[in-house]
């Protein structure tokens, strides 16, 4: 399979808490053994509730944070063993668009300086060439080139996010992590930015790793979906499969929780998940969803289900739901 852009094997990220003098401290398993392949020019959406490790997974796949274990393979190149210099060179191809367009642009830099930074870092060319490229980038995301001399605070949230996208695309990347990139925007702007991302994907042959908690965005935008729960990928499949026939109980609850616009459907009974997420510091034995799962059996309490792959679907459940 040579159409895989990036593949993660058994990635983990553990944070050690406390344990100062003599104390053992606790371990937070933010990402706990995730394996996945992302294909060329697809949009892979990662969904899950707050604190399940989505963002951490995105960060360690780009080595913005160091993974505690596992492997990341980018087009045949192992990233985890790369030194800082080699990694910095590869950052040209691996990019990220951040969640908060107010925090991701340096307030003391002009737009031109912000866009020029990745170009300079990778030796793009002369000052005039860089300037021209910055202007072209701005126009590519639908902003005027006159804005080059402005500061971030002169823009709205949507415009700032466009600038963030332009910066990520400066060096013609290959793989872009969008970390909740539209969550901070209001709905009409969200649609504009999503359309922009899709146009750019077609034009520049991009692969997106799209982290979000907004399922309606996923449905509209993603080719494949991965569902994350407490540091694990519990289900992976195409968007159609996941939405029409979820196999993991958690996925089913997640999808049934999406608000419906149709008032006639609203009154119908729908399953709502009860209870709290277990603490990532104190994982339950066996399947980590069993404390909330209405279908849990004895085996779920003792044995952690391994992900099983059939065709395009991967499910980590002892008793996957039948369609």
């Amino acid at each position, binding site marked *: 399979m040579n159409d895989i852009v990036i593949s993660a094997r058994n990635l983990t990220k553990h944070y050690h808490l406390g344990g100062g003098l003599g104390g053992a401290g606790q371990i937070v398993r933010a990402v706990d053994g995730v394996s996945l392949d992302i294909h060329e020019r697809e949009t892979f959406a990662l969904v899950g509730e707050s604190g399940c490790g989505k963002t951490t997974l995105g960060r360690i796949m780009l080595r913005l944070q160091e993974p505690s274990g596992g492997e990341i393979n980018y087009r045949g190149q192992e990233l985890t063993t790369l030194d800082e210099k080699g990694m910095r060179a590869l950052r040209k191809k691996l990019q990220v668009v951040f969640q908060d367009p107010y925090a991701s642009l340096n307030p*003391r830099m002009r737009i031109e*300086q912000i866009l020029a930074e990745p170009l300079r870092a990778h030796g793009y060319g002369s000052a005039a060439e860089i300037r021209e490229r910055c202007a072209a980038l701005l126009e590519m995301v639908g902003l005027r080139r006159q804005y080059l001399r402005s500061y971030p605070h002169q823009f709205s949230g949507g415009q700032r996010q466009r600038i963030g996208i332009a910066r990520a695309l400066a060096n013609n990347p290959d793989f872009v992590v969008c970390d909740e990139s539209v969550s901070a925007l209001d709905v009409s702007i969200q649609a504009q930015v999503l359309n922009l991302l899709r146009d750019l994907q077609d034009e520049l042959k991009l692969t997106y790793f799209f982290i979000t908690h907004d399922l309606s965005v996923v449905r509209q935008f993603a080719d494949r979906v991965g569902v994350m729960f407490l540091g694990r990928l519990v289900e992976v499949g195409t968007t159609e499969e996941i939405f029409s026939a979820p196999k993991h109980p958690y996925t089913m609850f997640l999808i049934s929780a999406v608000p419906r616009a149709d008032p006639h459907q609203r009154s119908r009974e729908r399953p709502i998940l009860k209870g709290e997420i277990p603490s990532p510091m104190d994982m339950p034995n066996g399947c980590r969803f069993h404390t909330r799962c209405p279908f849990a059996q004895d085996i779920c309490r003792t044995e952690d289900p391994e992900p099983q792959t059939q065709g395009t679907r991967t499910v980590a459940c002892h008793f996957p739901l039948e369609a």
Partner: protein
Amino acid sequence: MTVSPDLNVDTVEEIQEASLLRDTMRAFARNRMALLGLVFVALLVFLAIFAPIVSPHDPYRMALDEQFLPPSTTYWLGTDNFGRDVLTRIIYGARISLVVGIVPSLISLIIGTFMGVLSGYIGGKVDFVIMRLADMMIAFPSLLLAMVVMYTLGANLFNIFVALALVGWAGVARVVRSQTLALKEKEFIEAAHANGASRVTIMFRHIFPNVVPTLIVLFSLSIPDAIMWESSLSFLGVGVQPPEASWGLLVSRGKEYLFQAPVVAIAPGVAILLTVLAFNFVGDGLRDALDPSMKD
């Protein structure tokens, strides 16, 4: 590529050419107190530079028959115990006090910023070593430290700079370090990292410019501090030596005659007070003006 047309609603006229300098000046000019402070500081600098021309008398000429004269049209602020004109000595004192206020503050600011950014951004062992060094400087009685420096190196202006910078950098480093730690977690730093910017680039282009407003405030606060330090050292006999005039020296010498001629001690004290206030107003004004999010 096609983009929906409603994105470009802004007309060209609305796009303002943002110039940091001009925006800052405009915001600064709107702050009355800051402007007042700036006028005062400018006046002071002018007086200090042109002291020989603007001062009404010779600062060193003694006239023992004119001791402790009250303020009059000849001696606006009266005369001191040697019959010297107090106003003239204050004007000359501004020279030393301004230099002593500004130069060591700048030196400790530069050293402190460098150490603070390094400490906060690199972290680990570098952080540990720099911060323990700063702790040592802070834990040591600073007046004693400054006196040791002055005694061993001799009492002159340059050594005052050395002594004050040695005492001052640690505090700056601590403040800058804490700012750096906060900035380090910002997404734009992570973005710079993701863009392949080197650590040096991140420190210089991302962290440092965001620390500048704090530095300006620190600077405006450390100038009066330094002026007071110089006064203390001069008072203890290891600072500026008579017959030179510095404000601190004038206050400490004048206070011996506080009941005979209160103006001799109070006038330079008021000069210190006004200067300290003026620098603080300027510092506050600059901080507000430099913050881009506070502009309209």
